[in-house]
């Protein structure tokens, strides 16, 4: 009960506290998206205070508008983590609006050598989150050397759990590599690639991501891939559905194409590991059912 009470008091007092009141106690980490926030929580444990800006899986991250409280959190942060590659340009702006020499920015795109124009859903690349975790671990040790042992133990634990997920990915790849799949948006693109799938209708997905309309030809090709049985799985972004998506889902179900919803941000109550494992498990289950 104690920690809960403490949290309630702090929450009530928050508006009256000025910048950096906690700085001495815990390292404040602000993550643009909640999966990066989860990395920070797992690596930093009790020694960090983590704020994730985009965490509601039901809101479209592309339509997000920054609020004063977000800007304030970034201004007060010791470490900020964001995706980059054009996915969260508002975060770069917020960082530049509050110059602070003591603040460190960890940018996933920079760590993985990706740039604006690449598919920005980098966290679905199995190499990205471990790289972010390593960079964060190093930074936490530098800032708070007293707790080095904790950070290193947490990092080792995180790396191990991600290796386990990597093994599951390798299993699916071994059993079902080369399977043709399709998606309404490129959200799951890197993971599908890691699973060894052949992704159909890439141009359609780019158009949807950029809020441009897919052309009639692209729609025809998409529907054909669902109807003629070439696409075995249809991935869709369950956070962004519209009439056009509903229509494609309907066609997929009629033609016995497996439909798997993926989310752009991490659903509430999950961890990175459970979230990824759940999605990979759903893929495996769907493909196993088809094989019978």
């Amino acid at each position, binding site marked *: 009960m104690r920690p809960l009470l403490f949290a309630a008091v702090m929450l009530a007092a928050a508006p009256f506290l000025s910048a950096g009141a906690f700085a001495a106690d815990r390292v404040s980490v602000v993550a643009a998206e909640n999966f990066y926030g989860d990395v920070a929580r797992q690596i930093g444990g009790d020694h960090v205070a983590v704020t994730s800006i985009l965490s509601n899986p039901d809101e479209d991250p592309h339509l997000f508008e920054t609020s004063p*409280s977000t800007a304030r959190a970034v201004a007060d942060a010791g470490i900020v983590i964001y995706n980059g590659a*054009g996915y969260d340009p508002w975060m770069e702006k*917020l960082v530049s609006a509050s110059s602070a020499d003591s603040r460190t920015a960890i940018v996933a795109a920079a760590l993985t050598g990706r740039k604006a124009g690449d598919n920005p859903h980098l966290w679905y690349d199995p190499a990205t989150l471990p790289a972010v975790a390593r960079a964060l671990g190093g930074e936490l040790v530098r800032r708070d050397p007293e707790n080095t042992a904790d950070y290193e133990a947490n990092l080792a634990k995180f790396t191990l759990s991600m290796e386990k997920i990597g093994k599951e990915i390798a299993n699916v790849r071994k059993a079902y590599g080369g399977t043709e799949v399709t998606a309404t948006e490129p959200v799951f693109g890197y993971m599908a690639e890691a699973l060894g799938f052949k992704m159909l209708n890439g141009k359609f997905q780019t158009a949807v991501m950029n809020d441009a309309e897919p052309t009639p030809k692209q729609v025809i090709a998409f529907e054909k891939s669902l109807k003629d049985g070439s696409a075995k799985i249809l991935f869709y972004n369950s956070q962004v559905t519209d009439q056009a998506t509903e229509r494609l889902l309907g066609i997929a179900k009629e033609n016995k194409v497996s439909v798997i919803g993926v989310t752009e941000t991490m659903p509430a109550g999950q961890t990175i590991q459970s979230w990824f494992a759940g999605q990979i498990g759903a893929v495996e289950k769907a493909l196993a059912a088809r094989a019978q």
Partner: protein
Amino acid sequence: MLTMLEYEFMRNAFAASAIVGIVAGAVGYFLVLRGQTFAGHALAHVGFPGATGAALVGLSPFFGLTAFTLAAGIGIGLLGERAHRDVAIGIVLTLSLGLGLLFLHFYTTNAAQATSVLFGNVLGIGFRTVLVLAAMAIVTLAALTLIARPLLFASLQPELAEAKGVNLELVSTLFMVIVAVATAEATQIVGVLLVFALMVAPAATALHLTRGVLAGVVVSILIAVAIAWASLVLAYFTDWPTSFFITALGALGYLSAGAASRLRAA
């Protein structure tokens, strides 16, 4: 209350919105006086194909945004006072939005680097940007001062002005160029909605409240800055979007000024 000024981003936001408020209040006064608010609206939106098109051929999206807005400003200016002017502007506006969609269609990659130019964020302004904004404001206001006299003459008594040798087309075009530059620069910093809201509502309110031109411009500027600052304060304490307060306070100001002048007349 004062804790918000401890944040650099809030200080920058206050400075930037004051600069934008001054420019928008002054330029907006003439825009509303000339009945060209729709042209201003159109200019704020033609930047979209400019930004997406420029990034497509490898130029800076901001360069494309400015070039398109300028071209549209010159085009609208040349239309002058002709009948069906709004129809022509409307067609150019929709055509440019259509072009923007076409350019997006040609993207084979993520277009975020182009489209993010269109959505400014008043809470995400760096100090250097404030300086750029200030420099651009000085140029715009100087140009506006230079053409203020013939512009006013041409706006209020076009026939007489023409008879006295004022080149209506030239004045109108120069004015639209000023509007275009003001919109293009300010859009990517504070966003389309904010620029346009600050251009129209304060000026329209000032026209209700004042008689003389100089008084009108000054009041328009004061209202624009007051609305922008009040909106920042309200957003800071409620955590609602700044743009909402700017549009709401603008509408409130205009409606109460209208009601007040009606009461006075009655």
